Structure formats: structure tokens, C-alpha cells
């Protein structure tokens, strides 16, 4: 497995973490358990997840000539 392949796995895991963390923060905030920082962290995390998805697409396009092995 090449660096390209493991990087894609890593970006997928990071995206899932960002979405999960964002949902966790926003849930805390809307249930009245969190503060404004939870709202900011939640929204920031969802934005990072969207950014990672865009980056993943860019990365695949940029390294299309490099193999996965």
C-alpha cells in the first residue's frame, strides 16, 4: 500500500472524526450542556469535514498518475 492509499484512508478517518465530533459538540450545545465554544467547535468541525472532502477530491485528481501499491 503506497503513501497515496494510506493518505486516503487517513483523510476518510479524519473526515468521519470531524463529522462525529461536530455532531457531538452541536448536540451538547443544543441540549444546553455546552457553551458558545461548543457551538463554535461544532460548526468549525463540520466546516473542516467539508474541507477534507474537497481536499480528498483534489488529492485524487492531483495524484491520479500514482498507484495504490
Amino acid at each position, binding site marked *: 500500500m*503506497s*503513501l497515496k492509499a*494510506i*493518505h486516503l484512508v487517513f483523510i476518510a*478517518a479524519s473526515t468521519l472524526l470531524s463529522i462525529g*465530533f461536530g455532531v457531538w459538540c452541536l448536540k451538547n450545545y443544543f441540549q444546553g*450542556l455546552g457553551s458558545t465554544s461548543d457551538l463554535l*467547535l461544532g460548526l468549525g468541525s463540520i466546516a473542516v469535514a467539508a474541507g*477534507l472532502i474537497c481536499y480528498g477530491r483534489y488529492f485524487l485528481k492531483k495524484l491520479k498518475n500514482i498507484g495504490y501499491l
Partner: protein
Amino acid sequence: MDIPYVAQPRQDTGLYNAKVGIWLFLASEVMLFGALFSSYIILRVGAAPGSWVHGLLNIPIGTFNTAVLITSSVTVVLSWSALKAGNFAKYRVLQAITILCALGFLGIKSFEYREKFLHYEVWKTDGTRLLGHIDYNGTHPLFWKTETLAQQKLDSIKFVPDPYHYTMTAKEMAHARKGGHGKEHEPVTIKTSEITRLSSFVPAHSTYFGIYFTLTALHALHVLGGAIVIAFIWGPGAKLWKTDPDRYINRVEVSGLFWHFVDLVWIFLFPVLYLL
């Protein structure tokens, strides 16, 4: 006689020697961290209700450190890609950012550790337990324990209690944190004779901190090791680029594979230790 497959991959496997080597090494690392993760799960599931420490880590700092490591992974892979395209200058810049990210991560982690070493739990003779900081002549001492009180010949300590305790549920803790703003800095005096145990948040404090420090310190050692290897390839090892560029690119890829493994471990560590 030259050693075969040092730079070019074998026809049948498509792999060069170092890539086989790093994957075998990473397999052993998976077993090491896997055993520790399993230990954590078993300890956590087996803990008596209300005894498991939770909610004491700094989530914004942990989140920032996660972002630092994700950034470093991006720079590692882009630097490798730049090198494959023959752009050595771009590789140098991107790997320098990786090394800075690694140092930043370790710096933030050490700050986080220090915060834990300053934080205490006091077990009192009446059964109550308090979390907070010790105020000793206007300073916050590190690493005090029950014996320190006798060694310092103290009759009492000034303690700045937190408005919450980990025996509370997550909901109760959140309410206590919200309601306690402004009140947590009022110190109380606790007589030494009323204290049965005093411990800062060190591995000896509890099972949670034992496994927390084991996992995070082992991870931090891997970050340090990875940073040293990347820095060597980036610095003195860069001479190879002029004599054998294919082999140099392979070295960068192999160090990048290790770096991704280290970052992936953190992607699992962060939610497990900070959020659950």
C-alpha cells in the same frame, strides 16, 4: 554485488525492500497499540459506576492538536508528491512545515501534561472528594502527594476547588461548570489531618490517568521519533537526492507511511480519551 530492490520495486510484488520493512514494522505497532486500546476498553467497561474519571481533559486543546496532526499529514504527502515531480525546493518547504507541526504538537501536549500535574484531587476523612488547585504561597505546586504534606510539615493547605467532580454524570458536570463560573477561584483551607489522600493528575492517581499517560506518552514518543527521522531525511540525509533520487523518494515515502500511522493512532485516541 548490489542489493536488489533497494530503489526499484520487484516485478512480482510491486514493492521495494523498505516498503515491505515498514509495513512489517507497522504491523507490530498495530499489535502494540491494539493491546493498549483493548486494555483501555476492558478497564473502562469493568470500572465500577461513577469511578471512571471523565470530563477532565481540555477538549479545545485536544481538537487543536488533532488539526495540527491532520495538517502535518497533508504536508507529508504533498511533499512526497512534489519530490516525485522533481520539485525539491517545494518538498523542503512542505517537510519543514511537517517538522514544525510535530514540534507544535509536542509543545501543546507538554502544556497539557503540565496542566494535569498542577491539578489535584483531595480525599477527605469525611468521605468528600474535591478537585482543584493547591495555592502554596501564591504558586501552584507540581506533583504533590499525601507524603508531601508531612515532608513540608504543613498543618493545612489552601485549596481552590473546582465546582465539579468526575463522579458526576456528564450532564451534571456540564451544569456545574456553567453554574460555577466565577465561584471556582474562592480558596478553602483544608486541615492536613482531614486529608486521607492527595494526588495530582499523574498515572498513580487512577486507572484512567494510568492508561491516559501510557497511551499519550507512547504516542508522543512516536511523534518525536517520526519527527527526528523526517528531519534527518530533510537535512543531512538530503545528499542522497543528488546521487540516487529514486531511493531518496522511497525514504520520504516510508517516513510518510510511519507518520500516517502515528496520525491515525491519534485519530482513534482523541475521541476515546477526550470525548467518551
